[in-house]
């Protein structure tokens, strides 16, 4: 114990750097390693979420089936949604943002490296708290949007709307998502500051790679969208733990308040999921078309407009609750209007490919599939934005088809494209293209076989979130087709996992620039050294590396460094090397303390909850005031 304390103290002071591998991951503040942590943990959560979906599709394959109990089915669809949205797709994007944004803007790290570590550990803590509910009394069961009053266990007219919620499941939802939400918010703040302040000289706003623009906009949406959700969770927590009635209509509360506050967050949230995907596609398509991105300025403008409008459409999730024709019409109009900037993006991607010398790598295949699937999802989205039609589509499988076309067909396809594009930079080894093709076609066909029939099922009247259906409704055929699709999709994911494993063991070495890239990260060795850039580059074009290849000598020009700071940033000017921050265990300690608080609050052990909070604040103040002297890394031979 004393030895451990000694070790913690020593590491906080940066004395001991010959630490074990696990310890080095727990204490890392390097944006690249934190990015890898995000990617790895979100992949695990993704497999969990996939397993939940798999079980649901098995249950729905035949009418009147009993593969899982109805109570378990409710938990499965709730946790599937939560896991995929909060613990898989969003952190996977954050992982790529973490790894790539500093490289793309020519920086050595993010603005707040230790805050970055804290963000990750809080996300992981939230995810683990949420998933621990499976073992500790049952998972949340009221859907990912957890409508009131089902979420309060309130009794309305003598009937309990959710007898299951006297289990603890909803408490895990409330507490787990608050933890993960704090992490995401801190991440958002960090990346706004990083992108505004840390750009290399010459990297003017209108030269930022589009993925960086998308990251900035995503971060800003996070900053403004997460607070209403936090408040919603706090209100629900007070309702459940202290017996108030914010959402209980029987006591003068308002169940719709939950819906309003949820969707004020919830609709921007889907843009948090899709914006990084837009950015990734905008990097992949120009690279593999060997053309600059078409309509760069309009792409940036479209991103900004979509982000702004994402806060003005939330009530289209609530057309059927009875807000009246005026409100419905306004939100219908704003929702449909979002299709305009989105259309601008689609046409710009097509125009980028037009006349280009296209290389259909796996990454590019996924990027093209993204456009196809996302347009289908976008079209059904505009259909859903028509209120009279929405009265038919609402809560049917049509909606399930729509959301999966934009989240799998959109976000996930883009994440696969980004994986094949950027993982060689992260691991130093290429993924196998032959396996990649199997992976792509299995996923693409499996996805469409699974989800396209859901449009028909929805129009035939099958409601979402039902655990089974009678045989005489004629829903059996398309449900069976859909489940067959899941088997194909699963096979595709398994091929991807095998490809990852194979690449890690004996993948072809990627070299610094396997794709003949355009942007700064391809000027660096793969994997990227701890200090990123041996010399801070001068950015002279929107496609900096490509411009140097065509018009210069193919290498980036180092920037001129101010005299006063030369010692810190300019490698050749400082004999000791490049200054990098020291690792610290404190962010991990904060997350552990808050996890203790979380469980204490779930099980109503108030003294322990307060103790955990105090410990967390103590560690945060330590983080704020401990001076980090950092240490120096000598750039490798050959690195300029």
């Amino acid at each position, binding site marked *: 114990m004393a030895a451990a304390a000694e070790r913690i103290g020593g590491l906080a002071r940066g004395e001991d750097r010959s630490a074990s591998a696990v310890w080095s991951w727990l204490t890392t503040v390097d944006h690249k390693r934190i990015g890898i942590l995000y990617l790895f943990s979100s992949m695990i959560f993704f497999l969990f979420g996939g397993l939940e979906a798999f079980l649901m599709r098995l249950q729905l394959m035949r009418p009147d089936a009993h593969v899982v109990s109805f109570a378990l089915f409710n938990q499965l669809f709730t946790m599937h949604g939560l896991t995929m949205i909060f613990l898989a797709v969003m952190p996977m994007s954050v992982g790529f943002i973490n790894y790539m944004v500093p490289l793309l803007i020519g920086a050595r790290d993010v*603005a*707040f490296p230790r805050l970055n570590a804290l963000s990750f550990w809080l996300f992981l803590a939230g995810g683990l708290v949420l998933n621990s509910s499976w073992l500790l009394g049952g998972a949340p069961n009221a859907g990912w949007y957890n409508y009131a009053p089902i979420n309060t266990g309130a009794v309305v007219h003598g009937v309990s709307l959710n007898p299951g919620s006297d289990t603890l499941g909803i408490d895990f939802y409330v507490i787990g998502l608050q933890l993960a939400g704090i992490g995401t*918010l801190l991440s*958002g*703040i*960090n990346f*706004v*500051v990083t992108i*505004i*302040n*840390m750009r290399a*000289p*010459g990297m*003017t706003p209108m030269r930022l790679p589009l993925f960086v623009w998308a990251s900035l906009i995503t971060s800003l949406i996070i*900053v*403004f*969208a*997460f*607070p*209403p959700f*936090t*408040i*919603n969770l*706090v*209100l629900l927590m*007070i309702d459940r733990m*202290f*017996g*108030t*009635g*914010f959402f209980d209509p029987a*006591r*003068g*509360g*308002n169940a719709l*308040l939950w819906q309003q*506050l949820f969707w*004020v967050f919830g609709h921007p949230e889907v843009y948090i999921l899709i914006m990084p995907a837009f950015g990734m596609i905008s990097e992949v398509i120009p690279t593999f078309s060997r053309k600059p991105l078409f309509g760069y300025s309009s792409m940036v403008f479209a991103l900004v407009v979509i982000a702004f409008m994402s806060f003005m459409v939330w009530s289209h999730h609530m057309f059927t609750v009875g807000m009246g024709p005026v409100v419905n019409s306004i939100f219908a109009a704003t929702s449909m209007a979002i299709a305009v900037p989105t259309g601008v993006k689609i046409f710009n991607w097509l125009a980028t490919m037009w006349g280009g010398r296209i290389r259909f790598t796996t990454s590019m295949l996924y990027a093209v599939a993204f456009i196809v699937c996302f347009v289908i999802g976008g079209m059904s989205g505009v259909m859903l934005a028509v209120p009279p039609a929405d009265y038919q589509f609402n809560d049917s499988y049509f909606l399930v088809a729509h959301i999966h076309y934009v989240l799998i067909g959109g976000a996930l396809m883009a994440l696969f494209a980004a994986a094949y594009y950027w993982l060689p930079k992260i691991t130093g080894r290429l993924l196998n293209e032959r396996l990649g093709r199997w992976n792509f076609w299995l996923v693409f066909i499996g996805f469409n076989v699974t989800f396209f029939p859901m449009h028909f099922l929805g129009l035939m009247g099958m409601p979402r979130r039902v655990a089974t259906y009678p045989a005489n409704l004629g829903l059996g055929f398309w449900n069976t087709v859909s489940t067959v699709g899941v088997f194909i999709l699963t096979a595709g994911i398994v091929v991807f996992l095998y490809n990852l494993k194979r690449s890690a063991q004996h993948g072809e070495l990627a070299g610094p620039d396997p794709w003949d890239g355009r942007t700064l990260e391809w000027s660096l060795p793969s994997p990227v050294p701890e200090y990123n850039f041996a010399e*801070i580059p*001068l950015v*002279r*074009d929107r496609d900096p590396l490509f*411009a*140097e290849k*065509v*018009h*210069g000598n193919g290498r980036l020009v180092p*920037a*001129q*460094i*101010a*005299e*006063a*700071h030369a010692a*810190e*940033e300019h490698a050749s000017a400082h004999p000791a090397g490049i200054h990098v921050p020291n690792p610290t265990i404190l962010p991990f300690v904060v997350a552990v303390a808050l996890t203790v608080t979380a469980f204490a609050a779930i099980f109503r052990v108030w003294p322990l909850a307060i103790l955990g909070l105090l410990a967390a*604040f103590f560690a945060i*103040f330590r983080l*704020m*005031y401990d001076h980090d002297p950092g240490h120096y890394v000598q750039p490798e031979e050959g690195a300029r």
Partner: protein
Amino acid sequence: MSAPEVRTLEATPVGPYRLPTPAENTKLGIWVWLASDCALFAALIATYVSMHGHVGHAPTPQQLFDLPLTATATFVLLLSSLTMGLGLEAAQHGEHQRLMRWLVVTMILGLAFVGLQAVEFTTYVHRGLTPDASNFGASFFTLVGFHGLHVTFGVAWLLSIFIFVVRKGPLGPRDLWRLEAASLYWYFVDVVWVVIFTVVYLLGKVS
């Protein structure tokens, strides 16, 4: 297709580059955080506005609110903004003693505000307005209590700076940003109170 024409890459005229200082990063970070905190309070205030009519059998705002007490608390909190500003000004001129005095005064004013709030809350509970008595009570205690927690955290933050200065010596120009960051937060919490005072207390008394 012919090869693209080779052009000379002129650098945009940029001056010598230096990394942003912790001060520049932190202050921007605090501004972004406060922007998000605005959204937090906006959601809470909206909740209060939609809920405050549900008084049930519990006392109403008109019966409970004691404007002289709350006005005093408001005065105390706004005064603390002034003393915070004076402290910051002292720090900027390197006047160590004066900074420490104003820091202490600011913390005392902050604690006085939280204390008055505790008195107010206790009185209301004794007169029958518990958080679970009505939705007015629930939303009132949540909104005003949430702000009280913000003030309490602000005092803890100032205390941490006080301890930092005691341990590490006078606040030099390299560390001035620590105080500037805390002061931004402090002013923000005070400004939010002006909104809460107006929406909850003044409007509650007249409606």
